[in-house]
């Protein structure tokens, strides 16, 4: 039994492409997990979905012009968030309607471009990721975007948390809330660029929300939440990549399926907020 497990884990490591896919997806998992705590607490999962779709025209244009894909993706992703902010300020629409209109517009424009501009990009790879076939150049871009994200979050982590918790207080004490807003959008766009090759556009939002959401069910302290989120994400990314190799299924899909399984386990069995405990809890348990 132990030998079988060891073989399951070790045997694929003889392939360079798989070793590469494993550590790249673990790195992407780390970056996404950290950001997902903020996205969950801020309630920005729809914004994450929007940015991820809005990068498509950027990727197409970047390939057409011979630029790194990350540059185009970042510009269009961040541009979409600015457009969302602008439309919201200028109209009486609610934010979710504005997000819905803007991101689908960007996404559709990207699809039109990709079918018109002759290039060797595979739309399927943009949509669903392709970490098993990731090129050296794409790894470099992933690393740059990911490390930049981690550094920005590390330096601004307290302000970002304050921004998620109580932006009015931040304003009242003279902090630049506008800047916090754009900082969080900036790291969101960078994280999506980081995760593009691994999870693909459709599934990246899961990596941006699910680890943080799972951790939120398991903890009342932000630093614990962060650690749990990273653990959930790393576990899913590493084993998801193994699963995709052994079962010959989509890597992004496997990672997100594992994440979702862990989320459901937390939802049911979490020690304080799980369904089992909530059901069994008697009013008398809450007496102090």
């Amino acid at each position: 039994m132990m030998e079988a497990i060891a073989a399951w884990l070790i045997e694929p490591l003889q392939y360079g492409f798989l070793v590469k896919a494993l550590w790249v997806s673990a790195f992407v998992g780390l970056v996404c997990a950290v950001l997902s705590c903020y996205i969950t607490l801020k309630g920005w999962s729809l914004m994450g979905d929007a940015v991820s779709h809005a990068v498509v025209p950027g990727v197409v244009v970047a390939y057409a012009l011979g630029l790194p894909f990350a540059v185009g993706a970042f510009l269009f992703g961040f541009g979409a968030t600015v457009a969302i902010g602008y439309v919201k300020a200028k109209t009486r629409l609610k934010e979710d309607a504005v997000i819905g209109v803007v991101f689908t517009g960007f996404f559709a424009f990207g699809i039109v471009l990709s079918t018109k501009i002759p290039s060797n990009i595979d739309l399927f790879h943009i949509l669903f990721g392709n970490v098993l076939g990731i090129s050296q150049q794409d790894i470099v871009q992933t690393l740059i975007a990911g490390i930049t994200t981690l550094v920005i979050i590390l330096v601004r982590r307290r302000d970002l948390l304050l921004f998620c918790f109580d932006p009015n207080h931040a304003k009242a004490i003279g902090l630049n809330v506008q800047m916090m807003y754009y900082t969080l959008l900036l790291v969101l766009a960078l994280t999506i660029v980081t995760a593009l090759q691994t999870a693909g556009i459709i599934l990246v939002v899961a990596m941006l929300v699910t680890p943080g959401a799972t951790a939120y069910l398991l903890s009342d302290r932000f630093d614990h939440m962060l650690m749990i989120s990273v653990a959930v994400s790393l576990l899913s990314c590493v084993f998801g990549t193994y699963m995709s190799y052994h079962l010959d299924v989509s890597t992004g899909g496997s990672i997100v399926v594992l994440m979702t399984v862990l989320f459901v386990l937390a939802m049911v069995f979490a020690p304080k907020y799980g369904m089992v405990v909530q059901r069994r809890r008697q009013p008398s348990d809450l007496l102090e």
Partner: protein
Amino acid sequence: MTTQSLGITVDHLSVAYSNARLALYNVNCIVQPGSITALVGPNGGGKSTLFKSIMGFLKPGQGRVHISGYSPQMAQKRQLMAYVPQADEVDWDFPVSVYDVVMMGRYGYMNLLRIPSATDKRLVMESLERVGLSEFCRRQIGELSGGQKKRAFLARALAQQGKVILLDEPFTGVDIKTEKRMIDLLMQLRDEGHTILVSTHDLPSIATFCDRVVLINQTVLASGSTEDTLTEENLVMTFGGLPAASLSQQRAA
């Protein structure tokens, strides 16, 4: 600087909603330094709009607000104003402890990394002590009782050391004992020279601790000492013709 310019002065302030309806029209009032002033008016009468204008969250269409002689933006930068939010403005499930929340009162004094100094830590502990929450400082904020939650945010205002403290409906959902305790604390703070503005629905308690009252419904209808201002006639005018007796019934309901 004259003493008149200390405290809060609101000068010909008008604010419009985005749908072009007026929220506030030509509001003039003075919150005297070192006083407790109650801001009283019906829901939708512009109380929170006035609060937001004083805090600098809203740009006035016309007119000006000064806090100790400074614009709201300058007052924010100088840590002059502390804001205690309404309970329903706070996400009580947020994974922060009472200590974390009070420490947020110190962020304006810290460098960009927001690493607390020994002074920051000492002031946080002192503020917690003062509101009687020291033993609860490690609790997640949602695990506090209604009154403790209010006191936690008051402690944040204390840690911020703002000269001017604005409290938005501080007594909703608070029992009599906690209300009494908070009132005592507010009176102590006033005696130490803080300027306190409280928006409240709790008419009976106003006379027990507020020095001055501003009655507002779109514009200031009356203001002055509590004794002179909080009259039945003025209340009827402010709350749109409802007799005061039915008002107290409404509150009880």
